[in-house]
């Protein structure tokens, strides 16, 4: 399934709900999602991975790039809804040093 997104703005926090796969095909969707989220000038960007069923290493690289953009604009990032497997991947790649992993409510 290709990646789709939905952005919600709430009090300085933009939440991007992602659904599908994050691989090389996801580049344009992630760019569009970031642009839509940044339009509200949020200080915090939350990526909601609850409905993401697959991320490969190209997808991780896209998230690294997204983090670079967010940090360069003074935004912090959080990750919501990561499965244990992908939490582990965020730790191996040391993305978790910069993206706060929020437990699924």
């Amino acid at each position, binding site marked *: 399934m290709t990646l789709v997104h939905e952005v919600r703005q709430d009090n300085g926090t933009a939440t991007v709900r992602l659904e599908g796969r994050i691989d090389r095909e996801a580049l344009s969707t992630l760019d569009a999602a970031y642009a839509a989220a940044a339009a509200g000038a949020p200080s915090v960007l939350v990526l909601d991975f609850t409905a993401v069923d697959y991320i490969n290493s190209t997808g991780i690289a896209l998230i690294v790039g997204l983090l670079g953009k967010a940090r360069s604009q003074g935004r912090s990032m959080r990750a919501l809804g990561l499965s244990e497997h992908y939490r582990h991947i965020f730790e191996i790649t*040391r993305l978790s040093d910069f993206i706060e992993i929020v437990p699924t409510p």
Partner: protein
Amino acid sequence: MSDETSAERVVEAGQAAPATQVDEAAASITPRDAGNWAAKVDRLSVADEVSGFGYNVAGRRVAGPHQGFGRLWQRTYSVDLGSAVGPQELVADWRAHFGDFWPKGGVFHGALTGIEPGAVAPLEVGGGRGPKLATGVLVLYADDESFTFMTPEGHMFASMITFSGEEADGATTARIRILLRTSDPLFELGWPIMKRAEDTFWSGTLRNLAASHGVDDVHVQEESECLDRQRLWKNWRNVWHNAGIRSAWHIVTAPFRSQKSATGA
């Protein structure tokens, strides 16, 4: 009684699920791509047979682009191979003979088994026959159509490098995508020279890869984009692990180490 009958009896008794159901349950817990990723390690270790080249890798942590110092760059090199080879065949060959495609000046001390997730491979880079800078990579991810390296602390770049075979309209493209920051202020000073060396090195790699599949005179397409212009000054201390300085020190002190081991001190 056959094993099959035995399994059926167990299920009827409600004591355990048959093997197929157990496998399905396990699969729902273990993601299908789990085997493509390296296991988490705090510090890298180098296999005994290549440990002589791994002095700047053993004991280091991996360093992704956000652990580096310089500007964040995304650099892409790609070459069109037409229908000469499919993506999976291309990547299988690339994984099996990775170092063989490197241009002169680089030596990759990978395992004989090729590129496998979790493998740590020392490498040496440098021009000509002079001293080389020793560093390495961790194979973060590998599947049938791509594989990804991360670099250790001290490497010239804090980076993530993905090599892939991609198909579009019946043609295969070999691609190298690099997300990087220079690791420390000294390497950042050398970036104007290093980026040209990178272009030459990876373009040469793709030409060699193409030639091995019978595709000559290829045009390597290069793209470069700066994703973050800020330098991460809080990471200036990365210079402590600088593989250039440590390689030079290793070479200078080699005679003393030989003397020490000869005298058994």
